């Protein structure tokens, strides 16, 4: 034992590990470590994706192969097209609002002394469940008949200013926007925290130099800050798009998908558990997946790029 560590050869062996060829043990051991995760993922994610693809090509009770007829039904039914349109509205508006507001607030709080407190106030909704948020926002959107005291904050303000109370969640001209506002309230904090960190990484020398050259703050924002943190903006935006494609809870809790607020995930849920229509509901899920594939490819590309830069 003692001689091994004293002899010169022993020391050499210890400092430079011998390059063994891969033996059977080296091949098996990693699989023991990743095995549980791989099994979980195969059973709970990979198999269901394949199974749903298969179910989407069959009829309501999966007794007959119908090819693409479920998809044809979805894309020709005007109510279904409305559902898809709503989802699109959510994705476009929700992403634009959370990212833009998150960036704006990150820039603003960067310049005040109570940055931590302001950030906490905006970040808190992240810790609240969609169900809790639904209840919170009932007190904002509640509607009482004109002339009655309004217990909803928004209508109280509106009537105080001399307007008519609005049924924010029922009136189909505004209810989608009212629901999207709840999402924005919940997720702007997430965008803000990430964008804020990226913002701190922009070297101040560059901004100083631009300022010396007479650039305005707005010019600095759009010509220097935004281009420099654009990779982070892309990350945040794709996260929001994925979230919004799958949006379910806010709508399920606040309107149940009624009054023209239905989206794919809620409609899927209703088709499955109210109508037991496996064909249509699986087809809806497949549409979600297909919509997400481009984002998945984008994310994988980004990941490989990062690994290469390591």
């Amino acid at each position, binding site marked *: 034992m003692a001689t091994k560590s004293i002899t010169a050869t022993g020391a050499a062996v210890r400092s430079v590990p011998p390059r063994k060829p891969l033996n059977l043990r080296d091949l098996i051991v*990693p699989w023991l470590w990743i095995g549980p995760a791989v099994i979980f993922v195969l059973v709970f994610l990979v*198999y269901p994706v394949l199974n749903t693809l298969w179910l989407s090509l069959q009829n309501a009770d999966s007794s007959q192969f119908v090819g693409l007829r479920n998809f044809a039904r979805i894309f020709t039914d005007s109510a279904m097209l409305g559902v898809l349109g709503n989802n699109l509205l959510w994705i476009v508006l929700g992403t634009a609002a959370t990212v833009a507001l998150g960036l704006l607030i990150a820039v603003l709080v960067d310049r005040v002394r109570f940055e931590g407190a302001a950030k906490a106030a905006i970040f808190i909704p992240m810790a609240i469940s969609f169900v809790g948020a639904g209840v919170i926002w009932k007190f904002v959107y509640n509607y009482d008949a004109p002339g009655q005291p309004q217990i909803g904050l928004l209508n109280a303000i509106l009537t105080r200013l001399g307007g008519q109370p609005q049924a924010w969640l029922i009136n189909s001209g505004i209810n989608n926007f009212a629901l999207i506002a709840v999402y924005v309230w919940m997720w702007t904090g997430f965008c803000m925290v990430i964008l804020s960190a990226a913002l701190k990484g922009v070297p101040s020398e560059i901004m100083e130099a631009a300022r010396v050259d007479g650039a305005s703050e707005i010019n600095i924002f759009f010509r220097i800050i935004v281009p420099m943190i654009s990779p982070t903006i892309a990350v945040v935006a794709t996260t929001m798009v994925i979230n919004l494609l799958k949006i379910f809870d806010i709508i399920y809790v606040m309107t149940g998908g009624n009054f023209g607020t239905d989206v794919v995930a809620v409609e899927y849920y209703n088709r499955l558990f109210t109508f037991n229509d496996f064909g249509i509901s699986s087809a809806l899920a497949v549409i979600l997946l297909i919509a997400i594939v481009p984002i998945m490819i984008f994310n994988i590309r980004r990941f490989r790029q990062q690994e290469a830069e390591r």
Partner: protein
Amino acid sequence: MSMTNNPVDPARVSAEKEIAGVRGPTALELAETPVSPRERLGQRLNGGLLMALVVLISLLWSVPTFGLFVASFRSGAATQSTGWWNGLVPPWSFTLQNYQDVLSAQGLGQAFLNSLIIAIPGTILPVLVAAFAAYAFAWMRFPLRDWLFLAIVALLVVPIQMTLIPILSIFTGLGITGSYLAIWLAHTAYGLPFAVYLLRSFFGALPSDLMESARIDGASHVRVFTNILLPLAVPSLASLVIFQFMWVWNDLLVALIYIGGGDRAPMTVTIANLVNSFGSNYQVLTAAAFISMALPLIVFFSLQRYFVRGILAGSVKG
């Protein structure tokens, strides 16, 4: 706005400042650079206007939550007849009755317990399984390693909705639908892609010499993992634990499908049922919603710095 005379909101802001002060620098603040040329930049803008704008935005974001908080301490009759802001004007008549009602009569006490029973194993299991996998992905060499890792990360984007029918039929075949075991397994699987992704980037950033020299000295993988990696990885594990706990605790859809509305239902399901069935029975709802929010808020505030670190590691560095 109609609330300019409201004395409570500024107090709330200063209370938040105090919280931040008592706990030392929060993670949100830690991310800041020390006083820099940015300070001068702030002075260029109209400082007062800027401050007012930030205060306004912070208030705007806090008001809805604060409203629920106030409403939960008002009687049902008051909540249904007048807006919650009326409760802030003397004479005050706050009551704890709603909380008592909810905990006893509505079965919310059991639901709270159910949420814990679901969330604790639903957090520990995926973190453990992901930690094993992330260790191998970060520190072992084996064929297809990077491709397997990419495949798991790609599954991040699979809509959970898509998995519900097939998994439900598996669970029904095994006879475990509606049991805690079913939802533990489901949350473990759904949490894995993100957990593996996050932990691998954390583990990969640890100093490799430490791990390699231990291996060369003949330590087994199990020893390296438990004696070297885990102690070093406590902060990263903590941030993942917070993510996963909040996700499981706040989840509605997974619980709705695999547990349903029975006596094992967690708080989110019970409250969603209250919303749908009572509609305007606000006083029960307010207290119930606030109880369900309390735990994640406590977890969030006490472990905030880990939470933010987790977000940053997952999104900025990759």
